[in-house]
């Protein structure tokens, strides 16, 4: 079967924050660029980010990037690479100011500067006191950012392929990346996008869990495509459970609520975070707060008839503050929790929110894999940024507001690297292998011909329930071991999914089946990597790795201060060192220490 082909200098997959920021770099450099996106760009999940983007502008409280770097390394439980973290924190002011210049409607201080609010884990002077570092547009920062970035791309005449779903990565015999195959949803046609450079900005896969703040579209497409193409996935055991998802609905309530003074309370009304994080209290790191909440619920101090949630209380804040700084939260609470937070506290539970791991990259946005003894050898023609990538700046736990920063800094950086690589002639349009589209066509043909299979809905549900039960906020050795067996069984079932609808035009059944192929890779990587890591670190906390004098917080730096690499082929695990050295010679490394807030 012949497949149509389009040729570009660069193809970007995904039009959320990272993809749009990268696209700007390429469009403004005059490169012929295609941006493929499953949904119209402003529908990407960046739109749902609420509380802000981190930058040490110091508009309200004294701040500098060294403090931000320290907080990020500590937040990552020292699993983040310090070169990439230094790069991100140093670049923060530049990319946030650029965004303001693009027209982003940030809130303002009285003297007209960008408004900043406190956020979890961000501090002044190396952990001493909370700092206002989160640059915010009310509680709609992601929406304001995504629209501003899209608008700037309209100005730059970026070429979008809207409602196209990328299917598979194309690599040649050298392992170089030559583009992707993609499905046009409106016609059902498959096309090859042949390019010198391919940037993945496909977001996370939070939909592997039953209870998730994530949009339906967050199916880890880039991560799944990379895994199928033989690229290892890094640190996939680390998933962030956001402390405040609306109980029952999963919809996100920003940490900015606590930044504005919100307090978590248990059934007796106690501000329980004072016991778990005496210094930063409700503004401790997300993993810490989520575990504290889960402990309160597990020990019988939860609220409601089933004692299965805690309360987020802002009734003591002035109604004007809520209306001005948290208007979206009020809407969400009324819509999804049935409470007006001006009068009543909001029922919340920890909810799967963010994928810390992903496609391994360096700070330039190049995808890197172990090769010939070098753990971080770039894959020619392949770049990634944002939640699908692992630079790694978030390590074992991401700080709130660092995700929007990540996608700006590394979206831009990946774009700059591609522009430079093309300018100096590092990248050329290599000939496509004859079988470039075969894997994608086979996946579609399998769905066409499948009989007696299970529905995508059933198998997807089995996956989400398995992940929720076996790899949640707290992890247990026995459950993880069973989880590996269980998820591999689900993966077998995923190979036999059947869709009843075989039509061509806008076949969302087919799209959902193809998405499940990606989700299941992420689910396997998560469970297998988690089972293998026999320590507690950041968001990965196991019952058999408790807090002891020898291993503070259960962390074992002697054996486990290393990045996991999961290979799809044979579910093989490998490891690579954490970069403890910052990028610049004159910046001191952040020394290993026990994490307390």
């Amino acid at each position, binding site marked *: 079967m012949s497949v149509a082909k389009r040729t570009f200098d660069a193809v970007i997959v995904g039009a959320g924050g990272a993809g749009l920021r990268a696209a700007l770099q390429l469009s403004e450099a005059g490169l012929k660029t295609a941006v493929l996106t499953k*949904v*119209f760009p*402003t*529908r*990407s*999940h960046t*739109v*749902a980010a609420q509380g802000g983007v981190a930058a040490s*502008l110091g508009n309200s409280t004294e701040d500098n990037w060294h403090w931000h770097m320290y907080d990020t390394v500590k937040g990552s439980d020292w699993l983040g690479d310090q070169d990439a973290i230094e790069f991100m924190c140093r670049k923060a002011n530049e990319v946030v*100011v*650029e965004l*303001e*210049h*693009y*027209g982003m*409607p*940030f*809130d*303002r*201080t*009285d*003297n*007209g*500067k*960008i408004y900043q609010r406190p956020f979890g884990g961000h501090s002044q002077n190396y952990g001493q006191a909370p700092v206002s570092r989160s640059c915010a547009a009310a509680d*709609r920062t992601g*929406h*304001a950012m995504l*629209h*501003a970035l899209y*608008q700037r791309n*309209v*100005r730059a005449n970026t070429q979008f392929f809207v409602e196209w779903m990328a299917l598979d990565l194309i690599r040649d015999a050298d392992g170089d990346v030559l583009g992707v195959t993609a499905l046009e949803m*409106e016609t059902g046609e498959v096309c090859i996008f042949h390019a010198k450079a391919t940037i993945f900005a496909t977001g996370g896969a939070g939909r592997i869990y039953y209870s998730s703040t994530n*949009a*339906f*579209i967050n199916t880890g497409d880039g991560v799944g495509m990379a895994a199928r193409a033989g690229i290892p996935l890094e640190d996939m055991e680390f998933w962030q459970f956001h402390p405040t998802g609306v109980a*029952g*609905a999963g*919809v*996100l309530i920003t940490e900015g609520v606590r930044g504005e003074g919100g307090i978590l309370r248990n059934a007796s009304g106690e501000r329980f975070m004072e016991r778990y994080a005496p210094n930063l209290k409700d503004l401790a790191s997300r993993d810490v707060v989520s575990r504290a909440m889960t402990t309160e619920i597990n020990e019988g101090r939860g609220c409601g008839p089933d004692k299965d949630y805690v309360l987020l209380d802002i009734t003591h804040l002035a109604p004007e503050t809520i209306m001005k700084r948290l208007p*979206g939260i009020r*809407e*969400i609470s009324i*819509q*999804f929790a049935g409470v007006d937070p001006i009068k009543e506290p909001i029922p919340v539970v920890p909810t799967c929110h963010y994928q810390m791991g992903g496609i391994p990259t360096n700070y330039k946005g190049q995808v890197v894999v172990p090769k010939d003894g070098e753990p971080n050898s770039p894959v020619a023609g392949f770049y990634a940024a944002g939640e699908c990538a692992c630079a790694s700046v978030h390590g074992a736990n991401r700080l709130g507001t660092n995700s929007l920063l990540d996608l700006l800094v590394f979206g831009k950086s990946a774009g700059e690297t591609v522009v430079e690589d093309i300018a100096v002639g590092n990248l050329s349009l290599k000939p496509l292998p004859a079988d470039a589209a075969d894997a994608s066509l086979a996946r579609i043909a399998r769905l066409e011909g499948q009989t007696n299979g299970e*529905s*995508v*809905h059933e198998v997807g549900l089995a996956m989400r329930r398995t992940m929720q039960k076996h790899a949640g906020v707290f992890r247990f050795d026995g459950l993880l071991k069973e989880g590996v067996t269980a998820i591999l069984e689900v993966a077998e079932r995923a190979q036999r999914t059947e*869709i*009843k*609808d075989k*039509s*061509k*035009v*806008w*076949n*969302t*059944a087919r799209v*959902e089946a193809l998405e499940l192929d990606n989700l299941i890779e992420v689910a396997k990587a998560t469970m297998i990597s988690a089972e293998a890591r026999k320590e507690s670190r950041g968001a990965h906390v196991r019952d058999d790795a408790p807090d002891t004098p020898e291993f503070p917080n259960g962390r074992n730096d002697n054996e486990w201060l290393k990045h996991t690499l999961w290979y799809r082929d044979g579910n093989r695990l490998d490891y690579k060192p954490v970069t403890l050295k910052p990028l610049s010679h004159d910046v001191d490394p952040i020394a290993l220490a026990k994490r307390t807030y």
Partner: protein
Amino acid sequence: MTKRTVQFKIYRYDPDRDEKPYMQDISVELEASDKKLLDALVRLKAKDDSLSFRRSCREGVCGSDAMNINGKNGLACLTDIDKVAQPIVLRPLPGLPVIRDLIVDMTQFFKQYHSIKPYLINNDPPPERERLQSPDDREELNGLYECILCACCSTSCPSFWWNPDKFVGPAGLLAAYRFLADTRDQATNERLDNLEDPYRLFRCHSIMNCVDVCPKSLNPTRAIGKIKDMMVARAV
């Protein structure tokens, strides 16, 4: 809320199979946790995977799942299933070509949005730091920048139905005023010139369907009025 069955009448059309569209009577049993119309649609799709609709964030910020619900445009994810009269009649957004089932071709809608130059225009060299804007000036953008481009407003506007190629429509005009109202933008005259035309702006007859349906409680009619005021002020 307990388990209950909900009755639907849904507009169905698959160009591969159907000569013409038809209304399908269908019901679905809901779980206690299902609260929104979108929850019910997801359950319906598990039963019949050929039912096609757009959806993403399920919390009213991405603008994907706009549709016509019992004759009124809205977002499925923000519609309480138990507050809607049954059978719930679902149709695609009116006035745009239907591709399949509840999925419309939004090309014309976005074309109008793009036509107003929806980006900040400021030709001064960018300063090292942020451009300053007072809190009061920033406040002028509230009620404007929150638009999610769901198209509920434009596709409920009779003027947009008659002239989708010539009338910018409420969503596009709201965006136009969002930039006119921004103290950082320098293209006021250019923007007003762009709209000074019998159709682009002045086809708005203040019917206010847009205000009635906006799921974000925005007020395009007021924004359009302000643009008209700016036109008048410029003329005198």
